[in-house]
């Protein structure tokens, strides 16, 4: 049973560029959340997708957007990259309606130069 997978593993972009990160949830899970983890910090909630809709959003600007596909996989898009967007981006999935733990992917390390 594959867990949460993310691609790519690492990414280097230049300021002003756009980036797309991808996530496949654990089998049987239908809810996907994205988190940003800056160096030395705890993960910060970006947004959550369920039934292909954004259900809630954290304190992140509109440059951060997402999408969920019918197969429950998800994308995180970041436009007009800033140096401060450099971080580990984590995807987490769970089964909708479950109050229990989320399962996290290994993350995508984004470096903006």
């Amino acid at each position, binding site marked *: 049973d594959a867990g949460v997978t993310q691609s790519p593993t690492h990414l280097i972009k230049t300021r002003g560029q756009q980036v797309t990160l991808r996530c496949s949830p654990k089998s049987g899970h239908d809810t996907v959340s994205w988190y940003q983890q800056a160096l030395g910090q705890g993960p910060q*909630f970006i947004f959550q997708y369920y039934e292909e809709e954004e259900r809630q959003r954290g304190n992140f600007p509109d440059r951060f957007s997402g999408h969920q596909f019918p197969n429950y996989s998800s994308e995180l898009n970041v436009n007009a990259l800033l140096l401060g967007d450099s971080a580990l981006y*984590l995807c987490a999935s769970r089964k909708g309606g479950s*109050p*229990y*733990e989320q399962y*996290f992917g290994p993350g995508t390390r984004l470096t903006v130069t």
Partner: protein
Amino acid sequence: AQSVAQPEDQVNVAEGNPLTVKCTYSVSGNPYLFWYVQYPNRGLQFLLKYITGDNLVKGSYGFEAEFNKSQTSFHLKKPSALVSDSALYFCAVRDHSSGTYKYIFGTGTRLKVLA
């Protein structure tokens, strides 16, 4: 507002000794509390959770945590530390107010187990 605090940036312990990593929380309503571990360049791995029931929760890799409602704490413990336990540990609480299962994480505690 829901929050968690991990008051120690780093905890050092000798191999074989008991370890404790501290976490306190602030939530409205009943707390759903979690511990995760992160190894270098890896995502977060689930260790254990408290939803309801016994205050002592047992989890993966020999870890356990004690829920204390009066002290609003959820400290992570292990009777005998291993060098391989050295990692970054995060406490998290589910944000009930949002209704959408958003996690709020602490800032993390780095555990160093010395041989």
